[in-house]
């Protein structure tokens, strides 16, 4: 017997050394790969206390994972249980080397509590696993990658837990010294031992059973350790730093590419080695849960884009090309690559993927930067964008209207130009749609009416205004975008208004979150927030009675890019007679209209049209009116309504408020 235990000690030591060594080497390689990237990024360790809070909330308490109820609950059970069995695993690893070792001798009281908790939590793991098996074998949701990798991981986890119980059960049956007063704390293992009738076995048989359980438990754990770095279970390691280092705020600017630096030879993301370390950490962290794919408007309407697939394919490309050097690494979008131009251009930049990702993966950082590379380095973009680019370049609006006619929409409305009234406190940034689109013009007029009803001192830029650059920037034309941004920024700053009011979420997002990259900016407000405040401050008093059943469409650039969900509902609540009937997909989980990310200016050739998908949902509410707060959404919804031949009216929130508000 003692010979066996000597051999066992040696084998355990070798096993541990081998497994941990291999794990260490593979992990080091992954870290090394991160540091070899050409892109630079600082380590975002600002606001530490908030990050610590996020660690407890999202990692330890799994709050974000549980936003998807049952899978989240299952994950939480597995997560807690797995952590709970770890000390036990370490204990028996050490006991393998030093027979008879137990933490119980160090702190018996704590150990009893631990034994009690670990036993229960381990059982809950099996419950979680059962749900996972049910989900993968019976439910089989389309967005879930259901390959060998995920099944192996479930199997390993199940074996580890089952063998945890059997090790305990045999130890109880053997009445091992250290367990004598512990038996009753093993509230699960003890009944298992009884249920299996282990007390009827001989001591010899029990020892064989214990040793067999031990080896199965240890072998699977050691193999699991080696398996992790090469599998999607890498998220066990990468998720924690990824969550802690993730952006703390929802609003974020696109990367500002330095176009002045002569030494930069490539713009955007053309090759996988141009990522920065945090992008790579994002790729490592992905656990292929598919929540992003489930939310993605492109995927659900039959486009080739799945945000999950982009991340997984990027990770595969990274690993495959990791042995290459700068000269041999091939472009990300190339013949045979699963990341095709259609994938990249299908994105509406709605951020549904990022906003749902439990691990804060920033999918758009990849997609938008790849667009930039395609456009700026290779002039590869959907041909219909050419017209938009040319118009933006020469006429400063996407449709090619003469810039000097930009203020014609407000003829007869007595709206001052900033050039005539430079001391105006509020600059109303009308935007291209408000200036040129007939539908947009009616919204712009409603906004002007409301500003006048609230007796506010405002002016517009008129011919001095240009497109904010959103369309060009999200279509990858950073150069054109920066030209527009620079010119607008200089104009705005020559007047220095106290506030900028926008009538378009795209203008709002760009002015608010991206212009500060070019210099200080006044406060920027979108009209929903602005009017909601005016109502609250009693500057606007909606007094009309609108008997209407209404449903709210959230613009992506408000609800997901800027966390603005309540404002339109507050405004509607203030109007007597309106009855809000919400759709299923609203707020952070709202469905895009299909126009974001410059998709407004591209053809939607593949799959079902996104606006139709959305409008069918609207129709199902039986609402009479759908309210949006974005000229692009208005256009897309309007087109969709016509296609479904329904009688739903598409209105901007400003139009409704204007209708319900008399002049004071």
């Amino acid at each position, binding site marked *: 017997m003692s010979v066996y235990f000597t051999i066992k000690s040696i084998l355990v030591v070798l096993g541990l050394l081998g497994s941990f060594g291999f794990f260490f080497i593979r992990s080091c390689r992954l870290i090394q790969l991160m540091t070899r990237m050409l892109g630079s990024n600082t380590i975002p360790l600002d606001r530490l206390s908030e990050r610590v809070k996020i660690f407890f909330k999202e990692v330890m308490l799994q709050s974000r994972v549980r936003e998807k109820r049952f899978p989240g609950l299952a994950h939480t059970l597995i997560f807690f249980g797995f952590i709970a069995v770890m000390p036990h695993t370490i204990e028996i690893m050490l006991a393998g080397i030093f027979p008879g070792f137990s933490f119980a001798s160090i702190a018996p009281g704590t150990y009893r509590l631990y034994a009690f908790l670990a036993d229960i939590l381990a059982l809950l793991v099996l419950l979680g696993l059962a749900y996972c098996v049910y989900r993968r074998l019976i439910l089989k949701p389309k967005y879930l990658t259901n390959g060998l990798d995920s099944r192996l991981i479930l199997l390993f986890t199940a074996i580890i837990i089952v063998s945890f119980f059997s090790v305990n059960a045999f130890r109880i049956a053997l009445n091992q010294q250290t367990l004598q007063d512990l038996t009753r704390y093993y509230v699960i293992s003890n009944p298992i031992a009884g249920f299996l009738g282990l007390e009827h076995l001989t001591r010899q048989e029990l020892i064989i059973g214990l040793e067999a359980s031990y080896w199965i438990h240890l072998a699977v754990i050691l193999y699991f350790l080696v398996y992790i770095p090469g599998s999607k279970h890498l998220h066990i390691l990468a998720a924690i730093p990824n969550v802690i280092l993730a952006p703390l705020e929802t609003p974020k600017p696109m990367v500002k590419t330095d176009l002045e630096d002569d030494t930069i030879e490539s713009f955007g993301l053309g090759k996988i080695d141009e990522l920065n370390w945090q992008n790579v950490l994002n790729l490592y962290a992905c656990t292929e849960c598919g929540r992003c794919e489930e939310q993605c408007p492109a995927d659900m309407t039959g486009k080739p884009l799945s945000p999950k697939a982009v991340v997984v394919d990027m990770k595969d490309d990274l690993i495959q090309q990791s042995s290459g050097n700068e000269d041999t690494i091939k472009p990300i979008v190339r013949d045979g690559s699963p990341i095709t131009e259609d994938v990249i251009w299908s994105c509406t930049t709605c951020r549904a993927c990022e906003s749902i990702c439990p691990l804060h993966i920033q999918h758009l950082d990849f997609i938008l930067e790849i667009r930039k590379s395609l456009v700026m380095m290779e002039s590869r973009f959907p041909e219909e964008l050419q*017209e938009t680019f040319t118009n933006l370049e020469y006429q400063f609006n996407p449709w090619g209207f003469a810039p000097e006619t930009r203020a014609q929409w407000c003829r007869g409305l007595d709206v001052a130009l900033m050039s005539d009234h430079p001391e105006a406190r509020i600059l109303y940034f009308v935007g291209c749609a408000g200036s040129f689109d007939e539908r947009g013009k009616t919204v712009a007029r409603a906004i002007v009416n409301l500003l006048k009803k609230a007796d506010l001192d405002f002016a517009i830029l008129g011919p001095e205004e240009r497109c904010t650059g959103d369309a060009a920037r999200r279509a990858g034309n950073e150069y054109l975008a920066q030209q527009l941004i620079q010119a607008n920024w200089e104009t705005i700053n020559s007047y220095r208004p106290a506030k900028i009011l926008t009538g378009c979420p795209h203008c709002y997002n760009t002015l608010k979150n991206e212009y500060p990259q070019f210099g200080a900016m006044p406060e920027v407000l979108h009209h929903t927030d602005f009017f909601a405040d005016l109502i609250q401050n009693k500057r606007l008093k909606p007094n009309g009675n609108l008997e209407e059943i209404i449903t709210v469409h959230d613009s992506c650039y408000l609800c997901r890019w800027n966390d603005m969900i309540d404002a339109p509902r507050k405004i509607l609540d203030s109007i007597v007679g309106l009855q809000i009937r919400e759709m299923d997909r609203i707020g952070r989980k709202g469905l895009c209209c299909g126009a974001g990310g410059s998709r407004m*200016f591209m053809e939607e050739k593949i799959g079902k049209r996104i606006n139709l998908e959305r409008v069918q949902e609207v129709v199902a509410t039986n609402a009479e009116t759908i309210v949006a707060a974005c000229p692009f959404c208005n*256009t897309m919804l309007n087109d969709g309504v016509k296609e479904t031949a329904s009688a739903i009216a598409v209105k901007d929130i400003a139009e409704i408020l204007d209708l319900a508000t008399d002049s004071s």
Partner: protein
Amino acid sequence: MEKVGILIEFKDDKIKKTNYGVITLARQQGCELYALVLNGNAAACKEQLQQYGIKKVIDIASKEGPLQWHPVKWARAVVAAMDHFGITTLCGLTSAQGKELLPRIAADLDAPLVMDCTDVVLNERAAKKSQFSGKTVATIKVNGNHFIFGIRPNAIEKQPDPCEAEVIPFQTTVDKEALVVKEIKLQTHTGIDLTEADIIISGGRGMQKPENFAILFECAQVIGAAVGASRAAVDAGWAPHSMQVGQTGATVSPKVYIACGISGSVQHFAGMKTAGLIVAVNTDPEANITKNCDYYIVADLFEIVPILSRQLKLVVGENHLT
């Protein structure tokens, strides 16, 4: 006398009318004209070319016969012909083919190139082109040994000046190692090119179904118009994308644009706002297009368009405009 080559373009083996404007431009400046024909149709188009004062038609071919369309080979063949006949200036059209060919020829000759000219004074090497959507006109003077000008189609009024032409065969060798054309995909579409049409009649969602486009084609045929469609009609599958007018389709500037059953979203308007005259037929008096057109008929297009066809037939007779 300056020797000027005119690159003759064809569509479906028929000489394009827009060539005559280019010929007229060079002829009126007293140049010695060489019409360069590469597709083997030199003899066939001699009659038409001599109506506009062409005396020499150069039939450029390889040993094997006429040259198949191939931008690299054609460019080299034109350069060889220019060299052989001592042609220093080449005028062509700023068309799809011209955009493909003229820059290649300019590159081969290391010659200055001005595209989209609205006028050229050949002996001063000065070309005019409009900029910033027609708000300014730039005069561009170029220096060099050879000069290449791409003329904007229809920019110069054609004027006949009949004479007698001869066809001069010119054989050139073309190397085989140039780009290999794997496949030529032809877009099927009927009728006249949207971007070159003087009159366009377009249908939108109001057309209701694909078959109804027939009444537009019928009307278009009477007046030699092209038929367009709005994005809504194209998305619904009633018309091919090649017919789409608008932000993501063709940008057109015909003399007359007739919009039938089109509400006129900004995306559509962007593609036809430079039309000389816009006429809209729509049942909705509130449609956006009412704010952006010269004439507006609140009526069912299925009533109006047939009436229009009938009336136009009476005016132009049974002879179709060409």
